[in-house]
């Protein structure tokens, strides 16, 4: 394997890791506040659809008198992509509010709510997509301004000449879609918010002992709703990236393909901490990259089947959960509705 091939692998690792990372941080906010979120998948899927649908519509040329089946849009330029991301965030937030209503206001079962949200997104995206575009649940292909393209960082070509680090900067770090950088920046931001701000202190407290937060004069409901909303926003960006920032360039049904659960796995793997979350998502992104590039990996003694690579994130999570490599202890009040009156 030469260096170029390795960098190619890193490049796709970064791209694979981006939606995982955003969803993983979404889960981090939610679960740190004591709300289990197995609906990351559904929120991402809904966002992917809404983002692609709105971007396609906003970018399509305006037609005064469209014939049946023809899309008449707004004819916008690059703002179409922005509108798409906002629509994705909006759809994801709607799902998040449903989860919040069920698990915070109505004190329902958070796991069941998450399951329902995943199915709701899987069903509704195709249903609405079919009724809007009649393309078997897909959205029209996004092109030009309606999707995100790579962003060349300054001096990428100039520095490219430096051995090893140069091409690393040019081929891996530079040239990514802007949402990739958003995801990477979200990690230090999350860590800073969590450990250096009032909001972070209260967030961590409400996931450990909501009674302490309540008696300290802070509304548990408001804290948890904020956390769930942040999760919605982050999942929204993750979804928008999937349909607008990858080579898919549009929405295809079930396009999240379990990424919400891999993100959840990464969250557990990282023991609900931001920087380890980055590490876990990069690791799982790398596994995905290897899996899709090499099929079966021959390591001399025996051949590792590609399915094993695909299943590895899940296997690793099971191992971590079982405490074989350090114990993953979730926030203490996680999954338990806060009941004040007996």
């Amino acid at each position, binding site marked *: 394997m030469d260096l170029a091939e390795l960098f190619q692998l890193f490049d796709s690792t970064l791209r694979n890791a981006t939606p995982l990372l955003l969803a993983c941080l979404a889960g981090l906010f939610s679960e740190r506040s004591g709300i289990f979120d197995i609906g990351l998948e559904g929120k991402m899927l809904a966002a992917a659809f809404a983002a692609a649908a709105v971007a396609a519509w906003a970018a399509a040329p305006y037609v005064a008198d469209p014939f049946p089946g023809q899309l008449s849009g707004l004819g916008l330029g690059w703002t179409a992509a922005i509108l798409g991301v906002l629509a994705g965030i909006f759809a994801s937030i709607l799902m998040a509010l449903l989860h919040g209503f069920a698990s915070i206001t109505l004190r329902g079962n958070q796991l069941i709510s998450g*399951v329902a949200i*995943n*199915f709701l997104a899987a069903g509704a*995206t195709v249903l609405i997509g079919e*009724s809007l575009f009649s393309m078997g649940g897909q959205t029209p292909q996004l092109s030009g301004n309606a999707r995100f393209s790579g962003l060349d960082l300054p001096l990428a070509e100039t520095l490219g000449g430096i051995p090893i680090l140069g091409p690393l900067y040019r081929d891996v770090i530079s040239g990514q879609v802007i949402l990739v950088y958003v995801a990477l920046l979200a990690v230090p931001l999350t860590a800073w918010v969590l450990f250096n701000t009032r909001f972070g202190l209260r967030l961590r407290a409400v996931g450990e002992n909501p009674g302490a937060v309540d008696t300290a004069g802070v509304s548990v409901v408001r804290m948890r709703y904020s956390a769930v909303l942040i999760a919605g926003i982050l999942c929204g960006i993750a979804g928008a990236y999937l349909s607008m920032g990858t080579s898919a360039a549009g929405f295809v049904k079930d396009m999240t393909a379990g990424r919400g*659960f891999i993100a959840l796995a990464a969250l557990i793997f990282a023991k609900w901490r931001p920087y380890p979350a980055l590490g876990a998502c990069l690791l799982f992104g790398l596994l995905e990259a290897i899996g899709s590039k090499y099929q079966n990996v021959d390591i001399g003694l025996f051949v590792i089947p590609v*399915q*094993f690579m695909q299943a590895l994130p899940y296997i690793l999570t099971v191992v971590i959960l*079982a405490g074989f490599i350090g114990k993953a202890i979730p926030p203490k009040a996680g999954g338990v509705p806060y009941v004040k009156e007996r």
Partner: protein
Amino acid sequence: MKSMPRWVDLFLIPAINVFLAFLVAGLVVMFIGEDPLHAMRIMIQGSLGSDYGIGYTLFYTTSFIFTGLCVAVAFHASIFNIGGEGQAGVAGIGVAIVALTLDQTHWLLVLPLAVLGAGLFGAAWAAVPAYLNAKRGSHIVITTIMFNYIAAALLIYVLNTYLKVPGSMAPESRRFAGGAHIPRLDQMAEWIGLELTRTPANISLFLALLACLLVWLLIWRTRFGYELRAFGFSEPAAVYAGMAPFRIIMITMLISGALAGMMAINVVLGELQRLNLDSVQGAGFVGIAVALMGRSHPVGVILAALLFGVLYQGGAELAFEIPAIPSQMILTIQALVILFTGSLENMVRFPMERLFLFLRLRKEAR
């Protein structure tokens, strides 16, 4: 403090919740620009209006009874087994091994052994999460979700490596020979002189009904059921009473996994007559909706499974008649049922409790 009569808890609240789920589904259909009542007529006509429709409805119902029981049994022990999908998928391998080995013999031999194979493989796939939960304290919901994905990878691997027909590209086993073909309902009807249209509904339906009876006996009549329910309500109390949590978790999950596995009999042996990648197709997840709607009671599970059978068969007809309503409509309804009977249940329960408290206090005041 309980203030509601039992019938409200057991029947009225679930009924209102299911009604709400369908009301919202109807609104969705209206939003798409179709007539929900017309859609409903097509669905009912398509699922119950002919022996063909009924056959398919019962075929789906059979699978859903098994996966519904799988979730329901675990629910009684306060275990959320979300891994029915994977357990049923792996059970398919067990069925296929039995069928491929013995399909030169007779179905009377194949069926019981396939039941055993499906049960063993389904239970085995549930056993690992159960063990990790009981011994290491792993969260069983997360572990069983992970095992669904691992099962999918395992299934591809097994099909590609061991069961694929040599030279073929498709990841599926060869078709089982006639000796492994279990009787379909239309064939069984022929035995008593009835003529029915050929559908994949098969003898497994009776296995499913038998499983309901056995589950009912297990939960409410056996000593283990007593322990299982006690454990479900309070683990410390169960320990105080001398029950072993490890044993309860393990046995409950083994039974649960075996029940999920039984659906492979219906689909792999009864319908496909080969093993391929999509023998389960979400039925494991339908089981969650079925168990919630059926209140984890076998009779409720049968009714809810029947409803979902109608939805799946009717939904397929609907997608054919009105292409604007694709089969994902059913997935949406399923989500709404889980939502309303599961996590939004308190939306109806809280006002009901207040209503009955008010009625009671007024009665006492008189």
